[in-house]
């Protein structure tokens, strides 16, 4: 028996596989990935993995509210998950096992409206558990049904739309270099999710200049989008106090209290940062002011995974995101390296899992479809993952010149990649942003990006601001 007797075992053929606890079942049921081997929690054989999945299939969803993978007393993320669990929303699915839940999610009963209604009754552990019983196509089908819409200066996450974060990073934060990438991206219709810079420096005055640079462009050309400088949240709070024009507050988050501590944050600090951003009242049509980044492996990387598999830790980070109503949450899937996701196959699977779990929980999930050059992956794998995710209703992806981030040194997606997805799947940019693209003659009435002449205002008026 599984679940209600608190004993986890399954017999396959002549061999009975026993599992220590629910955490052990979850880890061993996970599709193979290097990070779980590194943590010493993965199944030793394919048969053991299948036995764990059969065992997990019989676990009632309600068991996840009884048997907490990381203790309530010692972890504030667990406390957040339990204390904010919506029992009324859960009632509709409370009688299901994990296997039933999978079938229910795939069935036509689980419509977009139904999924939105139950989202607050689903815990990250339930989402992670059911994903372990799903193939890639299941993850795509269910995620596609989930609707998560957010607003700041434009509307993100509408069905039939895909947005892009314009990421004009530069190795020394040179304003002219950043501006060149910024213009390039805007002229390719990128930047509706956010114009978000990863600065090379933590220097506060240099960060202040970056805020003014991007805000100046947004103001001058009246672009319905938002900016973000991806520095530590404590820097952003200080800069808000010093009067910086901060649209979105960024922070990397992870799924355990200890991992977040290694980032120098906790939930209270994030809430403080959110309040600071809200106090500026810079959103014109909505108040989703947070931008989070996550990625499988971050908890283990900080020795803070508590023996929980990395995909479940990742899903737990979405509980924090959900709590703080972000505009965007970005799983930077292949960034962390091959010790957590070894190759293209593992990166693709993780990207689909993260997107599914995030959307099921009601988080506006985008994906930095990416890899590092020390992983066994290449740009073809990225083409595969972005195409799958776009079919799954991905909220946004990255746009970077040549898909090559010259500051963070990794390979991601280009401006053209967003155009490719919009073209093959008939997807659009955020409506307010699309109107702007048309007004600026960057996009024609059929939604195609137009050739740009030297006389275009973005090229003519822009460089004057940056004359040395």
């Amino acid at each position, binding site marked *: 028996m599984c679940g209600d007797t608190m004993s986890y075992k399954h017999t396959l053929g002549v061999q009975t596989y026993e599992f220590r606890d629910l955490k052990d079942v979850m880890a061993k049921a996970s599709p193979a990935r*290097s990070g779980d*081997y*590194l943590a010493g929690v993965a199944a030793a054989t394919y048969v053991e993995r299948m036995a764990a999945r059969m065992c997990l299939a019989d676990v009632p969803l309600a068991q996840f509210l009884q048997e907490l993978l990381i203790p309530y007393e010692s972890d504030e993320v667990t406390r957040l998950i339990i204390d904010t669990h919506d029992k009324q929303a859960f009632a509709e699915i409370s009688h299901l096992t994990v296997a039933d839940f999978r079938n229910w999610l795939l069935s036509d009963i689980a419509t977009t409206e139904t999924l939105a209604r139950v989202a607050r009754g689903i815990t990250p552990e339930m989402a992670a558990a059911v994903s372990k019983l799903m193939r890639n196509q299941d993850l795509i089908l269910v995620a596609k049904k989930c609707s998560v819409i957010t607003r700041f200066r434009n509307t993100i996450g509408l069905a039939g739309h895909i947005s892009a974060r314009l990421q004009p990073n530069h*190795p*020394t934060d040179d304003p002219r270099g950043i501006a060149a990438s910024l213009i390039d991206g805007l002229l390719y219709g990128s930047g509706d999710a956010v114009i978000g810079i990863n600065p*090379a*420096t*933590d*220097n*506060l*005055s*240099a960060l202040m200049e970056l805020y003014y640079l991007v805000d100046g462009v947004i103001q001058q050309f009246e672009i319905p989008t938002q900016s973000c400088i991806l520095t*530590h949240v*404590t*820097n952003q*709070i*200080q800069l808000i106090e010093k009067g910086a024009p901060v649209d979105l507050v960024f922070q990397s988050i992870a799924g355990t209290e200890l991992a977040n*501590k*290694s*980032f*120098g944050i906790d939930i209270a600090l994030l809430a403080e940062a959110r309040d600071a951003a809200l106090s500026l009242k810079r959103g014109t049509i909505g108040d989703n002011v947070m931008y989070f980044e996550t990625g499988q492996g971050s908890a283990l*990387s*900080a020795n803070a995974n508590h023996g929980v598999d990395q995909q479940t830790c990742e899903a737990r980070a979405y509980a924090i995101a959900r709590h703080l109503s972000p505009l965007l949450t970005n799983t930077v899937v292949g960034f962390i*390296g*091959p*010790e957590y996701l*070894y190759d293209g196959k593992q990166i693709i699977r993780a990207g689909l899992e993260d997107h599914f779990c995030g959307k099921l929980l009601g988080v506006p999930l985008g994906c930095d479809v990416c890899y*590092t*050059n*020390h992983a066994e992956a290449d740009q073809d794998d990225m083409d595969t993952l972005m195409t799958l995710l776009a079919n799954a209703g991905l909220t946004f992806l990255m746009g970077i010149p*040549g898909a*090559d*981030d*010259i*500051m*963070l*040194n*990794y*390979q991601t997606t280009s401006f053209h990649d967003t155009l490719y997805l919009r073209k093959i799947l008939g997807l659009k940019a955020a409506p307010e942003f699309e109107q702007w693209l048309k007004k600026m003659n960057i996009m024609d009435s059929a939604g195609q990006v137009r050739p740009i002449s030297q006389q275009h205002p973005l090229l003519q008026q822009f460089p004057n601001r940056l004359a040395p």
Partner: protein
Amino acid sequence: MARDAVHLALDVNSLTDQLHAQGLTTLQVHSRATDRHSYLLRPDLGRRLDETSVSLLQQYSQHHYFHHPEKNIDLLLVIGDGLSSTAVSQQAAKLIAEIQLQIPPHWNLGPIVIAQQARVALADEASELLNARMVAMLIGERPGLSSPDSLGIYLTYNAKLGCTDADRNCISNVRPEGLVYAAAAKKLLWLCAAALRMQCSGIALKDESDTGSFIAVAPASLTEG
């Protein structure tokens, strides 16, 4: 080039020759990761010194510093191959030359530790064994398509086993096409001076090196922020 930079072994001999020519002593150590494959899949091994290296540093410390506490190292420099030996062979010695030029004369630099199959946190253990006040790890960053030779610097004050990234300050993209050596050395030494004053490094230590002198800033206003 990026893929090759990951797998190419660091030419330690050529690097030590350069450093010796700059008047420096070197110590060679190795992490517990025996080869590149285990380095890539087992970051925990890359963060720790192997047994031979531990005893080498212990002996060195015993011999040089035990009876001469006045010679204690102020800033220990550890060079780690990291994910790009190309970055280390092209940038490390030149960056150190700039640090030598700019470092306050009364600061003791100590020997340069060259670590193979190394990750950032390996410097913590080296620093603890050599009883250094601060340690800077100069390490090959993950190679990008058009930037396969970029060096990163991670500064930790009073480093010990178990320090986390929240305890470090990072300076990245050190290469001629990115942050140039002189600017990188200046930034590092500014952070060092600030770390000494505040007796900490990491997220509590904000880089305000361009806004004037650190002395003008009350430490409490930073640590409370």
